[in-house]
């Protein structure tokens, strides 16, 4: 990937110095060799700080929304970031001409803690950017691994065991809202948890409040989820957040499909923002 | 006579047992000040004043099942504390639905107070806007109660419209009749038929106008300022332009507060907590703080 990184740096420098973009979003290296962080480069001479290798674990697209006010912004985008770009466009957070997509086919990232493929990459369906202004490197094969194994496992449990599974999950939640802040679907100007006057979200830390937050957020994003798995990766407590997202995607596919997840195109309507008069009937 | 420098005390916290647990108080009187401002008098269940407090200090008002809100105490009487509350949000909305006889929680007093000791012998210029009235009123009432200790008193007060003027009785009937006390009221917007024939101006220009017309002097004067963010900014500038020394401008700040005792962390400006060391600061002190 070394030459991909060189081309990214070169292109970033060119785009910034020509003034075509005001910022390039990619990754930088932290204090330790295996640590990458989302880096926003604003000057051509800083382009050399950009890196691209198998340790770039973060899905950086959310940063786009903070910088598009200053002009066109370039984003180094793998499959997941490119789907996020589509997501933003479909959600009217961006227009296509506000973003310059430097597409990078992605072989999958490695979790520095374990040395294994990152979970969100092991479940990835779309490794090549679905939208790009230029492509750096050659498209990679997309094996489309089965991503519902965990859903199957939970579905096979008894109701009580499922409840216990989610109690354990939400019992560990510290409600730091990292999942929300990292999520490309969570673009509400005011999130329901901050609507203090309405008081949707209690402030106490307990499994009840965490479950309320977790499930409502999951449902708010369920039919738009791009399955990047960034929520799960960002979670400091290591909660298996994607299980409830995958479950919804699969249900939507089964009931209103075919549906392969959000962000594959930049236009709606998303499955729960439309209907068909002959939709399957369950509640007569 | 050399004037005493204004000294605002910042180390006034006192431990009164359980800082977070309110006492139950009864609402004994409610006055409708404007369409969205009401004043409340609170008394303990055994008919006493909830707490002794100095002008400028704060009280935390709670109205279960609704929230808690911090207000400046607008005045105290023999057997009550008075608060003036504008209906701006969820909790204040419900406070406005209280009726006489209802019981609420009250804890405090918190924070420091206006430097009424070191201001003795000075001419006092009070400036308030809209709901910035309560703390200023508390200090003004203190000065009137000890009238001989202070020089000339001027009060410049503005609100958005005539209907938004708070404490009209005090403004037009009570205070102007006090000795050497001059009340100057302006509104930002005149409205057809609201009966207002006075000045129409924003606070800062009006302040400068009053200053010139009345021939006020910054010599041996002390300015006291409270109001919303934009009034606060513009009037600070005006006062400095008029020649007030930063040490002679006393202000009171507002912030979202939760604990009231300098622990919960949200109302800091730099290393200072508004609820504990504040809310009263001189302009000179503010200038040394981060602009947070």
């Amino acid at each position: 990937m070394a030459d991909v990184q060189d081309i990214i740096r070169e292109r970033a420098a060119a785009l910034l110095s020509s003034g075509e973009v005001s910022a390039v979003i990619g990754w930088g290296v932290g204090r330790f060799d295996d640590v990458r962080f989302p880096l926003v480069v604003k000057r051509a001479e800083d382009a050399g700080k950009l890196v691209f290798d198998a340790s770039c674990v973060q899905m950086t697209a959310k940063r786009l929304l903070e910088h598009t006010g200053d002009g066109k912004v370039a984003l180094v985008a793998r499959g997941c970031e490119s789907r996020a770009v589509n997501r933003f466009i479909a959600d009217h957070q961006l227009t296509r001409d506000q973003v310059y997509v430097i597409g990078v086919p992605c072989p999958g990232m490695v979790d520095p803690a374990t040395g294994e493929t990152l979970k969100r990459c092991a479940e990835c369906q779309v490794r090549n950017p679905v939208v790009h202004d230029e492509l750096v490197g050659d498209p990679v094969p997309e094996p489309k691994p089965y991503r519902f194994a965990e859903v199957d496992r939970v579905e096979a449990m008894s109701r009580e065991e499922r409840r216990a599974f989610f109690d354990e999950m939400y019992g560990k939640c510290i409600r730091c809202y990292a999942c929300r802040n990292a999520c490309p679907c969570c673009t509400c100007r005011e999130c329901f948890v901050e609507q203090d006057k309405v008081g949707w979200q209690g402030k106490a830390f307990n499994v009840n409040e965490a479950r309320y937050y977790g499930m409502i957020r999951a449902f708010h994003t369920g039919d738009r989820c791009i399955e990047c798995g960034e929520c799960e990766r960002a979670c400091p407590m290591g909660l298996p957040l994607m299980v409830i997202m995958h479950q919804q995607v699969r249900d939507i596919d089964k009931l209103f499909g075919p549906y392969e997840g959000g962000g594959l195109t930049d236009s709606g309507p998303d499955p729960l923002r439309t209907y068909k008069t002959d939709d399957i009937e369950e509640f007569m | 006579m050399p004037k005493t420098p204004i000294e605002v005390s910042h180390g006034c916290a006192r431990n009164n047992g359980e800082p977070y647990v309110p006492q139950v108080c009864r609402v004994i009187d409610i006055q409708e000040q404007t369409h969205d401002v009401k004043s409340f008098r609170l008394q303990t269940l055994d008919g006493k004043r909830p707490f002794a407090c100095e002008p400028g200090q704060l009280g935390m008002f709670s109205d279960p099942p609704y929230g808690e809100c911090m207000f400046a105490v607008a005045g105290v009487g023999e057997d009550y504390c008075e608060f003036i509350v504008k209906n701006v949000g969820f909790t204040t909305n419900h406070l406005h639905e209280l009726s006489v006889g209802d019981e609420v929680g009250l804890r405090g007093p918190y924070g420091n107070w206006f430097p009424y000791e070191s201001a003795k012998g000075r001419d006092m210029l009070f400036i308030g806007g809209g709901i910035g009235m309560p703390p200023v009123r508390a200090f003004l009432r203190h000065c009137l109660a000890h009238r001989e200790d202070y020089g000339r008193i001027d009060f410049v007060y503005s609100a958005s419209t005539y209907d938004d003027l708070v404490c009209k009785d005090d403004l037009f009937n009570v205070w102007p009749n006090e000795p050497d006390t001059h009340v100057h009221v302006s509104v930002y917007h005149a409205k057809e038929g609201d009966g207002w024939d006075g000045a129409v101006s924003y606070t800062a220009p009006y302040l400068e106008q009053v200053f010139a017309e009345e021939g006020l002097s910054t010599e041996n004067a002390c300015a006291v300022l409270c109001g919303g963010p934009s009034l606060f900014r513009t009037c600070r500038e005006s006062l400095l332009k008029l020649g007030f020394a930063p040490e002679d401008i006393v202000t009171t700040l507002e912030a979202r507060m939760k604990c009231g005792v300098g622990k919960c962390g949200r109302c800091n400006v730099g290393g200072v907590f508004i609820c504990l060391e504040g809310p009263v600061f001189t302009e000179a002190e503010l200038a040394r703080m981060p602009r947070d």
Partner: protein
Amino acid sequence: MLLKKAKAGALLDAIAAKERLFVPADDRGTSRFVAYGAGVEPRFDLLNTKLPPKDLLFPATETLYRWSRDGADLAIDSAFAETDPFTVFGLRPCDMASVDRLDAVFLTKGYVDEFYQAKREAATFVAATCAHPGRACFCDSIAASPHEAPTADVLLEDAGEEWVVTPQTEKGASAVEAWKPYLEEGDAEPIKAACDLKVDMAAVPEKLKGMFDDPIWSDIGDQCLTCGTCTFVCPTCYCFNIDQDVREDEGKRFRCWDSCMFTDYTAMAGGHNPRASKESRVRQRFMHKLTYFNDRYDMNLCVGCGRCMRDCPAAVDISLIIDRIAASEPAQEKEAMAHA
């Protein structure tokens, strides 16, 4: 006196028979200080637990009072209760230093927080030194030494197979007295490797005072997600919110951890928010940690435990931020250079 690590279990059993005992242990995929009991495997090899021990003194949610309403009538009952004695065994010097900071906040400056005080007075802290600090540990250049914990009741110095046990307070002395059957006479040389990671804090608190408008804050803002992870895993972050649970005519008002990273942290009734931007919230966090707190309590609010660096989803690294502040030009010089 020595305590063989292999025999610590018997001592822990003895302590737990007498009072509540908290030890670092794995907990469903994370780690924290858990109540010792059957099935608990203490992890004295963990340098830092994922979650800090602060919740033992300052629970994430703590009821302050209960109220009930009957028409116009209101009743309020304080929820304050005395705490039974408990022991925290095996916390690290950085975490002990964090307790010093919490003490300063909750027990000084006018008001004493009785909820905190009750727990603090009930606690016996047994600190274990770090023979080999981890890669993200930098306590010895910011707040504490990994090999001492002056305010702990008992100090356990790691000497490989055993700990050298030293009582440091009266409470500690009486505790060690009771431990006698499990201790051995003798002496051993504690292992004292220094932290690899160093920061230069010397000029930071002063320099920060002139950096309110420095571009560093927007750079960190670009990287930061403004989630609350760092504040919740931080052993010293103490900011809290006060809110309530309502069930019809009764309810309880509680305090719970809050984070300066959240937008609603400073939002006031009526909509004004003095810290609406990401940049201003990030600035508040680091200014508070590295200069405001120093002004007020004469110590850093960072103890160098490295938890925030380890768990931050965006890899924000406080040690790099300190480096950058330390390397920056003081504001006046910058101005002078601009004029030149």
